[in-house]
């Protein structure tokens, strides 16, 4: 009788903890997805153009 109440409370607390963990995981998944969405976008040509031009400038100088 004495032990029952703390037990129930503990169980409740641990269920809440599981729930919180689940939610954190869900947010984590979403966060990665948000980031990966941009990672998976096609890189605009401009990036490679700029790099190519810089590379050519360097080899002309050297």
């Amino acid at each position, binding site marked *: 009788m004495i032990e029952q109440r703390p037990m129930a409370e503990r169980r409740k607390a641990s269920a809440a903890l599981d729930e919180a963990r689940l939610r954190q995981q869900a947010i984590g998944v*979403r966060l990665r997805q948000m980031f990966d969405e941009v990672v*998976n976008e096609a890189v605009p040509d401009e990036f490679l153009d*700029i790099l190519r031009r810089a590379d050519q400038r360097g080899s002309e100088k050297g």
Partner: protein
Amino acid sequence: MGSAVDNPRPERSAADDAAFKRELVQLIPHLRAFARTLCGDPTAADDLAQDAMMKAWDARASFQMGTNMKAWTFMILRNQFYSEKRRSWRQSQLDQEAAERTLVAVDDPEAPVALDELRQGLGMLPAEQREALILVGAGGFAYEEAAEICGCAVGTVKSRVSRARRALHAILEDGAYDRDGASAGDAMRSILADAERLSTVR
């Protein structure tokens, strides 16, 4: 190739540059994604990512091949961001963007509401918590690497990440943000549903 550590760097060969360039090109998508989280506005983010890419290219002689180029370039990008004080206009940018995204979300029935809420929630976090959470939670960096990128102690990164997680959870849960119509409970429900969907897809 492997003796670079032992020898004082001699002439930089064309092969060195080519190897560096190959690795740098592979990092462009990640630089763009990180820049997007800092700037919000995609165009400004790409400007930032290009600047960082060029800074990295110019500094290639100081990079030791075989070490973590991703962390190195992220550090360059971050320094660039803060040195240019792009933060000052970030806030006004966010408001306009949020309005645009809302329209996009309505147009596309597949677009989950939660993504928008998550971005808004992130926007409410202090900058140092946001970047720590993004580097560790989305960028796949270890705490040690994130600490190096941000120029702070590992323990600081750990506490920032955990505070960011708690705060973001609370924001999404309690609707600390304000968006017409949509309640925060919907955002969290939607995020949970997405996570389930994604975990079954992958």
